[in-house]
């Protein structure tokens, strides 16, 4: 487990008080290694989104340990988690979540702005990231002028422009047709294979999950299956 990037040990996430208390996560143990491509599946309400928010350092567990890069991420405050996200984590969402009426290049530059990178360097890095996702020449298009697949590529470029350690993808193909979905998955797989980018991806489609090295399945706030690498847990 020395090369584990993300670790959960007995992680609980509860909402509400007393009788009305609901456990979104009820004692979850998991580990994601550096360079792994993990798919997270499960019916809605199974806790996959909640664990995804915690993996992405957007949320903290009610109890239990969430380790990220060997740090006890569950104990960090808002500002510290913001730094962690900015430096090590890239996000890709189902709905792309690009800023409207803002060009592709500007969208990709956004995380670098919060790093305080000078404009010229920022622009170069954004161009490079857009070329990497196959969008060279579309830098000055706004989201409205791009197709769904292209928008998701911009979102991926935005996620990788900071050269993150972990990419968190929440239903990245949820809004795309089959062909575009496979193109996006090829892109993500390529980033995982060639760049050694660790990817944690939530999906509910089996054939999308099959791109991953293994699949973690959630059911009722617990892990039903860790996939074929269970022996390490």
């Amino acid at each position, binding site marked *: 487990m020395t090369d584990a990037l993300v670790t959960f040990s007995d992680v609980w996430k509860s909402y509400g008080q007393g009788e009305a208390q609901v456990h979104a996560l009820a004692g979850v143990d998991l580990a994601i290694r550096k360079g792994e491509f993990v798919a997270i599946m499960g019916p809605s309400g199974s806790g996959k989104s909640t664990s995804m928010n915690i993996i992405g350092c957007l949320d903290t567990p009610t109890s239990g340990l969430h380790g990220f890069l060997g740090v006890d991420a569950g104990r960090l405050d808002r500002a510290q988690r913001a*730094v962690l996200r900015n430096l090590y984590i890239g996000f890709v969402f189902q709905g792309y979540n*690009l800023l409207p009426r803002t060009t592709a290049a500007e969208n990709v530059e956004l*995380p670098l702005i*919060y790093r*305080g990178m000078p404009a010229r360097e920022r622009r170069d890095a954004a161009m490079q990231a857009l070329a990497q996702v196959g969008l060279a020449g579309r830098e000055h298009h706004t989201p409205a002028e791009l197709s769904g697949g292209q928008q998701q590529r911009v979102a991926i470029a935005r996620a990788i422009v900071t050269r993150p350690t972990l990419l968190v993808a929440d239903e990245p193909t949820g809004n795309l047709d089959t062909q575009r979905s496979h193109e996006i998955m090829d892109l993500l797989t390529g980033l995982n294979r060639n760049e050694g980018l660790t990817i944690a991806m939530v999906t509910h489609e089996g054939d999308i999950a099959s791109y991953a090295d293994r699949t973690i399945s959630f059911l009722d706030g617990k892990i039903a299956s860790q996939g074929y690498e269970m022996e390490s847990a």
Partner: protein
Amino acid sequence: MLWETIRLALRSVRRNAMRSVLTLLGIVIGVAAVIAMVTIGSGTTAKVREDISKLGSNLLVVRASRPDRSGTSNFTVRRLEQKDLDVLNKSLEDVRAVSGESQSQVRIVYGAQNTAAQVTGTDTEYFTARDWTVSLGRALTEQEVRGGTGVCLIGQTIRTQFFGSGDPLDEIIRVGKTSCRIIGTLGSKGYTGFGQDQDNLVLMPLTTYQRRIAGNRYIDTIYVSVNDGASTTQAVADVTAIMREARGIQPTRDDNFEVRDMTQIADAMTSATTAMTGMLGAVAGVSLLVGGIGIMNIMLVSVTERTREIGIRLAIGAHEKDILIQFLVEATVLSLLGGLLGIGLGLGLAGGAASFLSIPFAPSLTVILIAVVFSALIGMVFGFFPALRGARLNPIDALRHE
């Protein structure tokens, strides 16, 4: 980074152009009102000072007044009379002119036309003391003043109104219940700093005024014009001493009259203008407050509208303070823009008013700078709460926001 944020704010203002303009309007009107008020006010003050310096600082004004410590409130004022004027005329040295004046607003009629004018009863020295010139005909004579003859001189406003370009000399006009024959017209003096037309007047012998118009023997004001180079302070002391003696005032009692020089009167008038300006400025300031609330309202809308954007920014590593600054800058840019437009509009209004009222256009750089700083402050103060609300959003909830 800050420049980046300002650019972003300007873009957001431009995108919602209509909304921005409407929001700005409050600030624009507020700032314009303050700027216009203050600029017109200081123009008026300058005009008053100019008028008074034209009269000369060597003019003293004597009026009847209540002693400062008279004790009882029903003390009757001892008004000025011919003998006060006579004693001053006889005893004062080193003076150019001593002149009595009584006046009131009276309706005057010529043929089918009528108007209200300032009717002034005075003597021959009035022209020297108050700096009036005769543009047509002649001035009053000693004989006319002594005899109370029904003659008068008219100001340019009345001349134009009643006679146009015709000859007014020897025409008869009715003044209240009496009538007089026009013997001359006065040179024009224009408006005072308070917008009063100085040329809307009829000048007649004091005795005529007292008998036929006022029905008493009182004098409202005595003007003493001191020779150039003579000390006004000394003249005030002399006039006071002579008046006290003539009126038989015991050394322990206070004066029952007042002697003021023009500098004092100028100060009194300017302080009245300043107080007025200040009050109007404060009223205008209230509309700035209202404008600020408008900004707060629109920023709250903006934060709500852009909840998802805030979520994205927070997710990819923006700090609370980045979001806070973004919306604060946006509010400040908005109100600053309003402030600048307001300054432009205010100066335009003041310029228009200045040429209309024929007062000097006196924009103050200090006031403009204060307006700039103040409008920026309004944005910061009223933008803070909405910005904080945006910054405190939970990224997960914000991302889920539709």
